[in-house]
């Protein structure tokens, strides 16, 4: 084990953590505002990937344009979901779990039956490798990491400085007090769903060419994103999620490389369970709602 190997592990971990962040950020925003665990959030990621496939491979749009379009389309779907389903279950977690599972099954199945059984592929836009500090990475991943970082920073800035962004934070901290300030709960939750869905769609579209398209690709990502946000402090608006995702990526990378792939997943889950026990509000729980 030399410095080179450790560096490789760090880079691998960061590269998967960065992409997880997009899904986790949306999930935590939705949880922070609506107080429901949207188990169908992974499906928005899946739909994003399929949407980009449909737009770029079948309709012939430019890849980046297809991603933007997919973000808009999936955000619209998110608005519908919020308007007709989640809004009624705001802060009622128990039935909302079943609702989101129903939604998940429906979306998965419609993609499977709607797009045919064969594998789908988004043609990669970037080819070639980048050698960074002696570790070889595909150019595609570097670009994805960069775009993901830009998107996350954009969201952070939006939440920090834009008035609607500040309203999201206010509602996450105290919904009732926010409504007393004249902040509309419904428009905030709609906005949150828009951001969350668009981010998930972007993640799907970005990762589509790197990984593969599969109608069940959402659930494993959802599980990891859930881990990332509990690690960061559930409902924490930005702070913890970023660190949480990166920690998940790093732990997975180190454990896989050092001990082995299957045991790495067990270790990952055990670590999360352990952290929750000693720090029940998440390791980096900073902006927890009161």
């Amino acid at each position: 084990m030399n410095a080179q190997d450790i560096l490789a592990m760090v880079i691998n971990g960061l590269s998967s953590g960065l992409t997880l962040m997009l899904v986790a950020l949306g999930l935590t925003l939705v949880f922070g505002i609506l107080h429901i665990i949207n188990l169908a959030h992974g499906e928005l990621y899946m739909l994003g990937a399929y949407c980009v496939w449909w737009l770029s491979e079948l309709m012939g749009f430019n890849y980046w344009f297809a991603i933007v379009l997919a973000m808009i389309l999936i955000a619209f779907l998110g608005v519908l979901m919020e308007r007709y389903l989640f809004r009624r279950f705001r802060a009622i977690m128990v039935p909302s779990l079943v609702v989101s599972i129903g939604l998940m099954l429906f979306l998965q199945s419609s993609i499977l039956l709607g797009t045919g059984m064969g594998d789908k592929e988004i043609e990669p836009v970037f080819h070639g490798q980048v050698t960074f500090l002696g570790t070889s990475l595909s150019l595609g991943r570097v670009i994805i990491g960069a775009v993901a970082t830009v998107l996350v920073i954009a969201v952070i800035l939006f939440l920090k400085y834009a008035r609607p962004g500040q309203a999201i934070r206010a509602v996450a901290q105290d919904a009732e007090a926010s409504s007393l300030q004249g902040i509309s709960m419904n428009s905030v939750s709609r906005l949150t769903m828009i951001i969350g869905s668009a981010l998930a769609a972007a993640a799907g579209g970005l990762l589509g060419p790197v990984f593969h398209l599969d109608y069940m690709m959402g659930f494993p990502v959802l599980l990891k994103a859930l881990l990332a946000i509990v690690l960061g402090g559930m409902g924490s608006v930005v702070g913890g999620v970023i660190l949480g995702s990166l920690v998940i990526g790093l732990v997975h990378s180190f454990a896989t490389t050092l001990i082995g792939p299957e045991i790495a997943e067990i270790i990952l889950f055990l670590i999360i369970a352990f952290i929750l026990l000693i720090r029940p509000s998440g390791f980096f729980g900073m902006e927890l709602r009161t």
Partner: protein
Amino acid sequence: MKKFGLTLMVLAVSLALMTVVPFAMAKEKPVKYLKIGCNYGLTGVVAPACIASKRSLELEVERINKKGGIVVGGQRYHIKLLFEDNGYTSEGSVAAATKLIDRENVKFIFNIGTPGLAQTSVTEPAKVLSFLSSSADQALLNKKYSIRVYPLVQMNDIALLEYISKNIPEVKRVCLLFKNDSSGILNSQILPKLCAHYGMEFIGDELYSLTETDFYPLLARMLPRKPDLIVTDVGTGAALMAKQAIEKGYKGFFMGTTLGADIAWNKIGDKVPDGRFLGPVVDPGSKAAPREIREMTKRYEEKYGKGAPLDIAYLYHNYLMLVVQAVKKAGTVDDTDKIRDVMVKNTWDLPWGKTRFVGKEVWGVDGQGIMPVFVSAWIGSKKKIKLLKVIPAEDVYPTFLKLFGKK
């Protein structure tokens, strides 16, 4: 009430489906039928393969029936497929098998995937022939009514390694990176022995989870050991792994040992240099594929459009043709003892090639059908699978027996 607009719409769609689907299914008139049950996971993890198999089998049966069905012992039969969804669960598999046997009185049940193995607890006592497709080694163990006409992982490995040892002498160090399904487990058990047999060095195995997509950490573990050949499957996950291995600077060969989709190979795109990825597959639509499979692919694509199904789906044509030919030869459609006897004692001309039954030395029953192994390589620059060699089962089986027969 406006709030319920969307939900009402969903309800309406669901109701429409609920009324249309049964109608679409109940159109045939009862003549004499040879019923074949299909205990499939139409929902759940293996749904794509099962649905594709369902569609292609339906097309085939439609064709046979149009030609007047088959004649068994002077009686004309139409074939009827009865699909039961097991949701890819064991209890679903048992329930579905029970339903097929007790309600429909079927004598043949096709099954895909490992949790489906649970059906043998129902089929064995009922003397119903159970056609399995799991690589699990225990699947056949002492099971009189279980039949597997499935390319054995061991046979594929032998054929491919033999080809590699003869044609690619630079391969010396072999490692296994495989998904942790039953084929992967089997591979991790047999590969060290096989490598020793072919004078190669086995340097380690790692099994990853089925949902894995990011292989960088795993490769960081394996590649420093400098393998020349990575043994894996030819599915989507493996293609992804291969692509990422090359991004990580791997320069050696890959060997897939199970069936998989040709499209999955496209994942590698132009990343893998031509001829570096070998596997026991054949592009079902290409000229290299057996004629029947090629025609089948054409018919499937005409009806359901591009995006060919996994070739595992086509595998079930082997089962269908086996049943059709065996009942004709046995002269009965319900004496399963006799049909099984006829089945395992003869050599059959099935869509994937000449098939005969073996296995007494390994599993105590002759339930395993062995067929030719297609050794192919991926020509990435043309996105094509090139058939290198077809190795008859007879050339591979002796080695198999020598290495893996009962001690």
